[in-house]
């Protein structure tokens, strides 16, 4: 309230507005800050509605006409060049950094320290595995590898979310989609079937060999499992899903991966627990070089191999059919 100027004029000034806001007479937010819904809809005449529709259509057409939209082309140009510049800068920066890194193969490199030396020197004695790499990933750093096999497990879970079709019957069911997708595929290709017949046993046998010899020679669960998975996929492609379903269904997959991961989890928990409390684990290491040696490494290799093989096969089946 001012004594010098009349009430109306005072209200228009900033100080007056502030006063009114403080006393609650006026709310500056009301009808100003919030977005308002369009009122008066449904009152237009037919003509107006038609015009409105035409306008909307023309706007949509204009927006979809990307070839002649100057704003859009400009944005695309900007976007592409910015992306290019970012990538080139990053690449250049990393290349320059590589030039400053220690030279490869130099004996004085920082990476050649006591860590690697102990792996090479004591690896066989500590883990019982002739193959140092296997000894490292499944005994020295088994916790990381456990995480890594869980990465595979959880990746399958996300693919299951994305691809598994749970509809059993009718339009859009897994069966029907598979039939539609493979309509033009040759049903029983003699050449493929014959060669698969010869190759698949050898591939799977080789995979088993790689897994079982993981602690003796190059290889192990991850690579052997991938080989077995490839063999299964070849078999599936040659003979169709009906043949493989006889021995490998969703249930088989579920139980195999559950059993191997649980075994891994329990076995390693035991070994971590005893290790942390400096107890003897009581698992014999055997004679290095024998097939039954190196303690837990052989069973763990088998577990990892099973998980990897099942994962590979499951991915393929899910992409092909959307379910087992």
């Amino acid at each position: 309230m001012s004594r010098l100027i009349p009430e109306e004029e005072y209200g228009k000034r900033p100080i007056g507005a502030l006063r009114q806001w403080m006393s609650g007479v006026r709310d500056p937010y009301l009808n100003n800050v919030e977005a308002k819904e369009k009122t008066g809809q449904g009152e237009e005449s037919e003509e107006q509605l038609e015009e409105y529709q035409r306008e909307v259509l023309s706007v949509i057409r204009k927006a979809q006409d990307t070839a002649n939209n100057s704003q859009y082309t400009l944005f695309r140009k900007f976007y592409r060049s910015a992306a290019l510049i970012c990538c080139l800068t990053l690449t250049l920066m990393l290349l320059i950094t590589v030039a400053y890194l220690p030279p490869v193969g130099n004996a004085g490199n920082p990476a050649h320290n006591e860590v690697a030396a102990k792996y090479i020197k004591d690896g066989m004695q500590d883990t019982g595995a002739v193959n140092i790499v296997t000894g490292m990933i499944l005994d020295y750093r088994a916790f990381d590898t456990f995480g890594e096999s869980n990465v595979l497990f959880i990746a399958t879970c996300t693919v299951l979310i994305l691809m598994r079709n749970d509809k059993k019957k009718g339009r859009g069911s897994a069966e029907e989609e598979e039939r539609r997708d493979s309509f033009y595929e040759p049903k029983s290709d003699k050449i493929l079937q014959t060669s698969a017949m010869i190759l698949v046993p050898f591939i799977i046998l080789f995979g088993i060999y790689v897994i079982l010899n993981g602690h003796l020679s190059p290889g192990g669960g991850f690579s052997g499992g991938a080989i077995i998975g490839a063999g299964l996929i070849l078999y599936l492609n040659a003979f169709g899903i009906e043949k493989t379903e006889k021995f490998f269904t969703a249930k088989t997959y579920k139980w195999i991966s559950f059993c191997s991961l649980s075994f891994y989890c329990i076995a390693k928990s035991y070994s971590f627990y005893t290790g942390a409390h400096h107890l003897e684990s009581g698992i014999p290491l055997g004679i290095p070089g024998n097939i039954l040696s190196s303690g837990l490494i052989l069973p763990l290799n088998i577990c990892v191999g099973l998980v990897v093989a099942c994962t590979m096969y499951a991915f393929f089946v899910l992409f092909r059919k959307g379910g087992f």
Partner: protein
Amino acid sequence: MDFIQNVPFFSIMISMFSGIISSILSEKWAKRLNTAAILVVGIMSGALLLYLCRTGIGSYIFMMGHFPAPWGNEIRAGVLEAGMAMFFCIVMLLSMTGGRKKLFDEVEYTKHNIYYILVDMMLSSLLALIYTNDLFTAYVFVEINTIAACGLIMIRQNGRTIEAAVRYMIMSLLGSGLLLMGICMLYDLTGHLLMSNIKEVMAEIMANGTYRIPMLVTVGIMTIGLAIKSALFPCHAWLPDAYGYSTVSSAAMLSSLVSKGYIFLLIKIFYRVIGLDIIYSSHIIGILFIFGLCGMLFGSFSAIGEKDIRRMIAFSSVAQIGYIYMGFGLGMKEGMVASVYHILVHAATKSLLFISAIGLTDVSAGSRSFFALNGSGYRNRIAGIGFAVGSLSMVGIPIFSGFVSKLLFAKAAIINPTWKMFPTVIVLAISTILNAIYFLKTVIRIYTPEDLTVEKEKGSYSIRWDEQKLYAATIILFVVLNLILGMNSRPVIHLIETGLANFA
């Protein structure tokens, strides 16, 4: 070694094993197992925290296997780690219970047990990120965290979530790739993956001047990789869709836990790998500071312009992440404490906001637009209270948690001796006002009564609290958590300070 010192190892293994078991269980049992696992891990972490505080052991190392550290794996637990694990479990449990009803509406029933597998795995990876003392272990679990988060986004299958998941995947993999590259170069330069060993070699390198340039690039790459993964300002484009369209438990967990896990790892890397002196004397901290400030402003601007309530809350996350990085950027201990406190505050508040927002939109005929929300605070009273508390906390009203962290930020800025003082204080003030604009605008709208006839026309209805007991309990617990953080901040700050001191 006392038996209770096994807790970090047990909690990682329990959560992981429950994920593995869930793959053969029915939906119902997977749900129970998930709840039990989170509860057990939370209680155990609380016990560990009590034990560590009582005995005064700062932190200790737990050997994972028969071989000592640089050869085998190890994890490390301290006051801050145990407290963080307990807090994450609380928030995760509440997020799961709050979104349980919505899960049935939005996710195919046959895929529910996969959802619980993902949540279990995410818990284990968060715990591993908290406890790890080894950079490669951290990377492995970052991977699990990323894939689980992608699954959590796209388990509600519609076009928007698939698109959001693809975006999240691309940005997140860029971040992971940079982190991995950084770890590789760090190994090349130092020959170690164990955090404490790297720190020793790092100090030597920095003192000698050999490999100085690649070291700085490495540190920068790792920082930026983790910043992208936790949605620091210019790399936040994936965030609004990912938080805005996924099912509500996922949104709450993604915003309050997943991004915080990466930030916690970054703090760990600052303290235990690089060393505070080196990081504070480099320009990387300045970049984080500037992007943090930009995030505080632009996140809020985007939120003001948003008409979809879920996306608005998501954009507000960008602003809050900006606060956290601004605290790092101040380059002082007080800023770090404020940032860690803000991690807690944001985790507790943002999940509350997401969960109460879903209650409000449900009684407004499922529409997420602002216009439909008129009077929804009366139709679902408990959700309205939750949203109001969350909003007030985010704005920074005293007695709610947001106030304390803002006060800590302001205090840290004022005693900062460098040029960073004025920008921080000014942007803090502006950002608070912007926060107030968009949050209070929504609170006013949900408490503006709507005509009954209009309500009926729109198809909205009222719901009482006894029709949604679990949901109401969740909201009440969240509000209590907020009030605890807001009114009882001193012991928490003390805990953070001792925890950070043990880090170094």
